[in-house]
């Protein structure tokens, strides 16, 4: 591909997003959509002034960060511990990738069936003779801390990040690690100075993608997230389907907030990459 074609291809890929952002910006500021009466920042100001919105943003950010962190830690663990060619290693890697075939909605639904207050776990405890099984099972569905949401999404994102970690390590790892060893590095040094830097740089784009995806996840949130705080995707949909038509514009303000969060994550990634490229360059 010639260098001049690249911006065009990138522009084509970004076009739907740009159109969407443009429409959302117009609808949020009274330029397009129902009740559009000329440019005004009234809805933007009113939405950004709501405590509910900021509580929702905070909830979405922390749960998405926690789920991403858990999944990343799991992927690093699986990829470094089971990286050999032995049968056990191969089996472990295959198992870690297995959740990849489960759709997100199904993963969340299965989670409710297993760990809900009247789910499989509660039933098993009840069958074992505990009278108040529902009280014994921790509240993981609609729970304000979002622990169920975090666990379900971490489990669901683990295979994606694991696959990425396997490929990063197998393509770039062995040669550099061998070199380090031949230069006298011990196992800890090899991990600290070679394996880990390769891993996290290779994983970072995937980590950012997972974070943005989890922060925007509607299907898992509707099944697992609490009623309050209201997760940002749920709040967006709630405003978009509000019985009062005048609230449609709120939804577009929230869409812009969501896109802004994802854009910040991408910017952080670009900044980190520029930093280490400067180091290496």
């Amino acid at each position: 591909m010639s260098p001049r074609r690249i911006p065009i291809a990138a522009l084509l890929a970004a076009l739907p997003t740009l159109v969407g952002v443009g429409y959302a910006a117009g609808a949020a500021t009274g330029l397009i959509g129902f009740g559009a009466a000329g440019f005004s920042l009234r809805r933007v100001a009113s939405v950004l002034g709501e405590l509910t919105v900021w509580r929702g943003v905070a909830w979405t950010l922390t749960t998405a960060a926690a789920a991403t962190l858990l999944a990343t830690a799991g992927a690093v663990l699986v990829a470094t511990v089971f990286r050999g060619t032995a049968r056990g290693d191969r089996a472990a890697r295959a198992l870690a990738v297995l959740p990849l075939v489960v759709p997100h909605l199904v993963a969340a639904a299965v989670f409710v069936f297993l760990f809900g207050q009247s789910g499989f776990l509660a039933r098993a405890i009840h069958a074992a003779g505990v009278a108040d099984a529902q009280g014994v099972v921790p509240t993981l569905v609609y729970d304000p801390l979002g622990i169920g949401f975090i666990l379900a999404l971490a489990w669901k994102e683990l295979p994606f990040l694991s696959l990425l970690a396997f490929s990063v390590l197998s393509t770039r790892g062995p040669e550099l690690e061998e070199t380090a060893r031949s230069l006298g590095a011990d196992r800890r040094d090899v991990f600290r100075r070679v394996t880990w830097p390769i891993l996290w740089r290779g994983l970072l784009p995937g980590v950012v993608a997972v974070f943005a995806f989890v922060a925007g996840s509607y299907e898992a949130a509707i099944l697992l997230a609490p009623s309050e705080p209201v997760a940002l995707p749920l709040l967006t949909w709630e405003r978009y389907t509000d019985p009062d038509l005048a609230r449609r514009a709120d939804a577009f303000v929230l869409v812009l907030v969501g896109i802004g969060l994802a854009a910040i994550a991408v910017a952080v990634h670009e900044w980190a990459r520029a930093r280490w490229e400067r180091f290496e360059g």
Partner: protein
Amino acid sequence: MWRGDPSINAYVDGWIAPRLLARHGITLRAVEGQGPEIVNQLLVERDARARGSADLIWINGETFHNLREAQLLYGPWAQRLPNVVYVDSTAPTIQRDFEQPTAGYESPWGAVQFALIYDSLRIPRPPGTVAELARWIRAHPGRFTHDQGFTGVAFLKILLYALNGGVETFQGGFDESRYRRGSERVWAWLDSLRPALWRGGSAYPPGVAELHRLFANREVDFSMSMNQNEVVTKVRQGILPPASRALLLRDGTIANSHYLGIPANAPNPAGAMVVANFLLSPEAQLEKLKPEVWADGSVLAVERLPPEWATRFHGATAAGALSSDSLAKYARPEVAPEYHERLAADWRTRIRAGGS
């Protein structure tokens, strides 16, 4: 149309569609979409100046209000349907939709009434009024909640009527000061019961389907429905426990109708009218009424029907269903749509946000 109920889908796809094709050569293709989604779809189509994607839409008063407000409905057409002569034109819950005159912009399809759902094995003697319900909730902490969707807002509206001297207080259009005074009592009622609600009132199921699941799994002892007969079909499908029953609170429960509208940009309004007319026929309304089909209330006046149809309608009451006399006795009409909008919005800020 809303595609969330297998019985309704089976009626539309398996009974209505083949007859329309055989008799009128019309291919009926039902697609998913309800309430606000329909409004959004039509708004976007208009913005984009696109050809309409739907000829006939299934709506309720809330959506009707939005669509009329945004001038997205075709009409008037409904009074020109031949089968309109059978419609119960004396029923206030059919002629007026959320206090708005239908004005020929929508044609009635079914009539329903709100009911609580309980398990007669778990609660042999259920509470019969809003006051008794409050006492029951206090005596059984953690066993009652309502959903955040349309059905939950209908429940709030029942509280609004019951705690403020009846529906009459709110009839005749939206009144801000009456709403404020009235809704304060609803929030006070919910606040005082909050500790005794499911999860201490800190979480509420997003929709009525999740509430059904909590009820079936014995996490709570009540569910609710905007169709008094839903309990009959859901028990038959094995979704709700076998001894589940519908319960009407004697303070009065909301009765309303659901309708069919034609979008202003419909590609084929004439075809849509043929379909709407068939859906209004005694044959289609009777089939829909059967408990093993959908158990959706008819909008026809039995005394206006040809005698052979009248007898068949009389014989069609479902086993386990509520009698039409008690239904009529406790039926209360909907009030202006603004009450619904405000209750939904204010519940979120007053009750939900204060719950954790």
